[in-house]
């Protein structure tokens, strides 16, 4: 069964066709990248898949189940989560607490037991804390275990969002421009992190502008232009596709892709 199947996805905003008749499939365990110029609709696609926007047309299947109209929190319970292009960190909490919220996602509205501070709640709290510490160490944020989220530098915040998403134990993880604004060495770290996430069996869908990262890491690439599919295939195929090359990669890059 495929991790994600999208058919005929469309979304209009007023007169703007943000996404039109888009179809693609992501297989289990793949690293699948969506690229395209700004305004191509990549983040809109993410928003449609994760339930933030309702599609005007089309269907989305997650592990075979139709997820139309389900709220993001229900999808998170089914193993689908995402990070954000413009960082939606909980700045009013500590870095650790940010990740803990992901870990205790099954915090049912047990208001009564929480208010009475029942032992089960305390145990859950301690467990979530342990998990969060482990995840922060995994993404390389061990130095910030005691810090407020607001005090973290930009690069650390990007990784914090990933740690938070991982805390929900996703089967399908959508990363929206995880390398945006990062320098070369930071991007290499993100590259390694994404690979290790995929090695754990998580299916990753990536929206990115950093071509070196995308070409190096992706099993499959989907190229969008003005909300519609321009091309799809492996990094080799996409790199050699003349339309794509002409529009987005530039002739210089096509040369180095062949050499790689």
């Amino acid at each position: 069964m495929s991790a994600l199947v999208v058919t005929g996805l469309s979304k209009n905003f007023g007169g703007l066709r943000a996404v039109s008749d888009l179809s693609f499939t992501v297989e289990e365990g793949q690293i699948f990248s969506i690229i395209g110029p700004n305004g191509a609709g990549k983040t809109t696609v993410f928003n449609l898949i994760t339930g933030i926007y309702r599609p005007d047309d089309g269907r989305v299947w997650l592990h075979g189940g139709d997820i139309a109209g389900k709220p993001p929190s229900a999808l998170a319970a089914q193993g689908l989560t995402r990070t954000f292009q413009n960082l939606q960190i909980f700045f009013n909490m500590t870095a650790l607490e940010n990740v803990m919220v992901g870990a205790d996602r099954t915090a049912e509205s047990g208001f009564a037991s929480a208010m009475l501070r029942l032992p089960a709640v305390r145990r859950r709290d301690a467990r979530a804390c342990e998990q969060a510490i482990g995840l922060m160490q995994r993404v390389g944020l061990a130095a910030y275990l005691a810090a407020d989220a607001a005090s973290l530098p930009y690069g650390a915040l990007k990784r914090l969002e990933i740690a938070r998403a991982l805390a929900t134990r996703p089967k399908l993880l959508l990363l929206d421009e995880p390398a945006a604004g990062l320098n070369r060495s930071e991007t290499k770290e993100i590259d390694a992190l994404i690979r290790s996430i995929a090695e754990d069996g998580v299916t990753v869908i990536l929206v990115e502008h950093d071509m070196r990262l995308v070409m190096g890491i992706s099993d499959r690439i989907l190229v969008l232009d003005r909300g519609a599919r321009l091309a799809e295939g492996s990094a080799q195929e996409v790199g050699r596709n003349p339309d794509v090359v002409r529009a987005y990669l530039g002739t210089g890059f096509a040369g180095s892709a062949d050499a790689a």
Partner: protein
Amino acid sequence: MKALLAPRTGGLLALAIVIALLPAVLPNNFYFNVVILVGLNAIVCIGLNLLIGYAGQISLGHAGFFGLGAYASALLTSSYGWPSLAALVVGAAAVGALAFLLARPILKLKGHYLAMGTLGMGVIISIVLNQEAGFTGGPDGMPVPAFAVLGWTAYGERTWYWIVGGTLLVTTWLALNLIESPVGRALRAIHGSEIAAEVIGVKTERFKTLVFVISAVLASVGGSMFAHYSGFITPSEAEFFHSIAFVTMVVLGGMASIFGSILGAAILTVLPQFLAVFHDYETLVLGAVMMGVMIFLPKGLLPSLAELLRRRRL
């Protein structure tokens, strides 16, 4: 983790000590009266702070719930002869149910729109209480029988002091527990970024509804207790200005600070008592205080104080 516990138990202990020792220093019943009012306001404000400070929502209509609780107790005990405790509980449950129904449409709103929605709700409750004179005695108000449980009646300032003090302590304990639990984290996450909270699995609609209901129930309980204590209530308990007073207490004391709410309630309950001497200036000074604190200490007193201390230590 241990470090987290210290301010909590420390704070609770301090509160318990203050409540226990205060009667020794209060000179007469007038002071007891003021302190009781502080306590009742604090109970309402703690609930409201959960909604405003922690979950990041707004309500400019909570006095409506307070008024409904007061009138529920008043009506059920005087017109229908119900026992006081039953009336209080049923009143709170009814207010909770109302809040639950209202939460669905209203909490879809954000920011100014949410403020307006809750304002409208509060004003309508206030108008209904004013108009339905057949039930409520209209603008002139209605008397409320004393609070009685199993033959024992609560009379006088001293008794009520312990009742309110005890209730405040329990409410504070419950609220602190809630905040430091996964539920509290989820609420703060909603405040931090509702969309991110939703995406990592927090059922934001459910949490917002529940915290709204809890804060409404606390307001109702405060209102019921106030009704029995003061023996007489008027629809002004539910008026817009009263809602603003509650919100100001919360913001003044410190959003997302339970003890801040107690402090805010204390200051804004005591202040008008002193200002009553300056009768003519009362409104003016109150307005000035509200503006001044919000402009210069937008985080509220306790968080600003904590920040100051933290910087000193560094």
